């Protein structure tokens, strides 16, 4: 062990960060399934997926800020970005995705509803909606069609942007040649697919939960479709991760002995048990069964719920194993250290829990402000039903 390696550099907050951006990218891809690829069945989750993505994207910089030694200097990343640094360039990718893709798409999709609400509500709510209209109040046939076309265009750009967002996070790890656990050209791809898995599962669970809370009927066709996409994406994700593992075992380069020992000892519970067995193999098996066997709606819903929860836990474990696992072994391949997660400090477990709860709070506010429910659509006199309603 090099003497400076005993203390871990990146804590649970840096585990949270790829997890959160992964949920963003995944939720957006699910939304784009409907908008770009015209998968009608998943329409009920379209707006929910977008709002989920926004809620999580707004929280994403927080773990980073809390982790920095000097958060007050973080603006330097935008003022003097070092072009060779993946981390610096990511700041712009994030900004692009937030401003040019997500916010714009949400605004365009909701514009009609916002304008109507700005005219029909009263008091503080009216002020908020008036501000949200950004001055636009044109609801003519032509302007709505422009909204539609522009929104489509932005989603088309948004898909590679979502891949770029989370692929970049993968690259931040995958490009570190000093760390053999991270350094791999597969890393951005694995991150993207596991992001899609976690995002789709999260939106699915949120849809099930919110529909139940609102006392409405779940659209089982929609759920089946989402579960199907989750299944396929998961199979690809699992194959990629197994490919990485098998190649490592076969090639057995200098780092292998050290990493192998680490997986068998320090990472056994989090990687083999939680991530692989409980978090990947089990949900894939469950979802596969739901595809093959003829099961009743109730059973299928239960399976989707269980599979979704296990998936989200499994993907979190994957982030943990990548970030923390990559720091548990020495770069000399001759030693190991332990991660002592503190509880109530700036980078402790309490903060991590709070940061995971916060997006749901933001989502709650967003949902109240811009209801995504298919049956909450505002009918407009004479106009054809705008996109997003069913």
């Amino acid at each position, binding site marked *: *062990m*090099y*003497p*400076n*390696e*005993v*203390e871990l*550099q*990146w804590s649970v907050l840096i585990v949270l960060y790829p997890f959160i951006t992964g949920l963003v990218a995944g939720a957006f891809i699910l939304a784009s399934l409907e908008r770009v690829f015209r998968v009608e069945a998943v329409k009920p989750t379209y707006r929910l997926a977008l709002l989920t993505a926004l809620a999580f994207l707004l929280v994403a910089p927080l773990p*980073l800020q809390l*982790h*920095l*030694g*000097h*958060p007050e*200097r*973080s603006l*330097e*990343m935008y003022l*003097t*970005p*070092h072009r*060779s*640094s*993946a*981390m*610096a360039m990511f*700041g712009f990718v994030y900004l692009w995705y937030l401003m040019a893709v997500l916010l714009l798409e949400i605004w365009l999709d909701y514009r009609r509803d916002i304008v109507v609400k700005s005219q029909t509500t009263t008091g503080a709510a009216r002020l908020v909606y008036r501000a949200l209209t950004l001055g636009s109040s044109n609801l003519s046939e032509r302007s709505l069609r422009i909204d539609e076309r522009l929104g489509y265009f932005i989603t088309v750009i948004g898909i590679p942007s979502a891949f770029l967002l989370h692929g970049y996070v993968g690259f*931040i790890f995958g*490009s*570190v*040649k*000093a*760390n053999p656990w991270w350094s791999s050209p597969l890393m951005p791809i694995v991150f993207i697919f596991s992001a899609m898995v976690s995002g789709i599962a999260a939106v699915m669970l949120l849809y099930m939960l919110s529909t139940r809370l609102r006392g409405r009927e779940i659209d089982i066709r929609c759920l089946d479709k989402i579960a199907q996409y989750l299944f396929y994406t998961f199979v690809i994700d699992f194959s990629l991760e197994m490919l990485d593992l098998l190649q490592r075992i076969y090639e057995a380069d*200098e780092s292998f002995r050290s990493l192998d020992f680490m997986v068998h000892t320090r990472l056994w519970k989090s990687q083999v048990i939680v991530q692989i067995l409980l978090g990947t193999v089990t949900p894939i098996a469950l979802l596969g069964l739901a595809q093959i066997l003829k099961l009743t709606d109730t059973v299928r819903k239960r399976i989707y719920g269980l599979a979704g929860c296990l998936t989200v836990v499994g993907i979190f474990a994957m982030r943990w194993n990548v970030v923390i696992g990559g*720091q548990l072994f*020495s*770069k*000399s*391949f*001759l*030693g190991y250290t332990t991660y002592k997660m503190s509880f109530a400090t700036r980078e402790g477990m309490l903060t991590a829990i709070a940061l995971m709860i916060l997006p749901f709070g933001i989502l709650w506010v967003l949902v109240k402000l811009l209801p995504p429910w298919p049956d909450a659509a505002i009918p407009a006199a004479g106009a054809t039903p705008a996109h997003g309603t069913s």
Partner: protein
Amino acid sequence: MDITRRRLLVLLPAAAVAWKYVLAGTPELSPNYKLTEHWWTMLIDIPKCIGCGSCVRACAEENDVPDGFYRTWIERYHVADWRLERPEVESPNGGKQGFPPNQDAGGKNFFVPKLCNHCADSPCTQVCPVGATFVTPDGVVLVDKNYCLGCRYCVQACPYGCRFINPRTKTAEKCSLCYHRINKGLTTACCEVCPTGARQLADLKNPKDPIHEFLRTHSVQVLKPHMATGAKVFYNGMDGSVR
């Protein structure tokens, strides 16, 4: 003069830029020292190292290094047999108080002092998001502690484990090759106190520096050459087991 909006738009940025220059009062380097005339490095002669720890102590004193962190450290290697990739290595407190006496365990035993390799193609410099760590024109990799965010990416990117985060300044820190000494004609603190001359500061751009002759007549290595970092600290007599 009327303050019209147009005039203000021109004056404000000009004023902002000018104000910045007024505020900046920079200390100067010694007048005789030209950055481009030097290319600093270090030579470590492993057969001479006695593991006394003087270098580790001197560095900590000279550079105010916090306890538990090391800008330089010493490792003791024990290589039992032919398996070069499985040495036993220890570094009690970085070797700061020397090493405890031991029984002669057979095999091959030696000390290896380590420090920042001041890489010419430094991976830590490549990943710094803001330019807080950099290679100076005279070949030393430094950290600007007034600009560093403390994001720790550089610590992850260094293959040699020579960087750490100073708990007081909350910024990245590492061996600076005693930059404040070498441009005044002094040698580094570690080289000053090394009793056997195992550590020697060298200036590759000085034609009279003994390192040129040394590199010509000895077999030397750098640490982790497969990382292609352009490491500039040369090790004489380094065994293949050194990690």
